């Protein structure tokens, strides 16, 4: 797992509430990523970071924001959770040619 942890591992929340997922890495990787995994879609990139305070959007960024104030932490925030954001969320870190993944967070929005 290359020293990547995610918290929480499971969360159930209600529609309209804000949710923050945390990714923490211990390998001092420059690049960090947030993906979501849904049946029939594989993994899709939400946002990524190429350095502290340097972030950009992926292909499914609507309704999500990110922040990276330290090299080791990358936060994903659902500003107002919707049922369509029920998914498994993966964080990854590493070089662009070698990404290692965290264990995933299962988020259920009711």
């Amino acid at each position, binding site marked *: *797992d290359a020293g990547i942890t995610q918290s929480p591992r499971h969360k159930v929340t209600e529609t309209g509430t804000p949710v923050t997922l945390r990714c923490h890495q211990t390998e001092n990787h420059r*690049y960090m*990523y947030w993906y979501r995994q849904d049946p*029939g*879609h*594989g*993994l*899709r*990139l939400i946002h*990524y970071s*190429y350095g502290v305070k340097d972030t*950009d959007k*992926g*292909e499914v960024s609507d309704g999500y924001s990110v922040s990276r104030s330290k090299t080791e932490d990358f936060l994903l925030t659902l500003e107002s959770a919707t049922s369509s954001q029920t998914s*498994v969320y*993966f964080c*990854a870190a590493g070089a*662009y*040619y*070698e*990404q*290692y*993944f965290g*264990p*995933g967070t299962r988020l259920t929005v009711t």
Partner: protein
Amino acid sequence: AQTVTQSQPEMSVQEAETVTLSCTYDTSESNYYLFWYKQPPSRQMILVIRQEAYKQQNATENRFSVNFQKAAKSFSLKISDSQLGDTAMYFCAFIHGGSGGSNYKLTFGKGTLLTVNP
């Protein structure tokens, strides 16, 4: 935009046999990387093997090897001596190796569910 296609949603193989998973991709770039990731029932994404497009030699990692056909844009994964622990979803993925924003986007196929039967 690049795309990655895995045409086999599910496959099965008998223990100790060999199986090949298919992947095709589409890109106009010449410098890129290809990957196979394994996702067992534990949900952990595990990097199985990586291929750099500029290397002609096919990558190999123990029982896992690839057949990289650059002109055909094909990147298949061969698993030899299949084991019960190989049962997993396998994802093919692609990333550009050049500079620029597209550098950062790892594009995945939709996956192939492989079941190894005893």
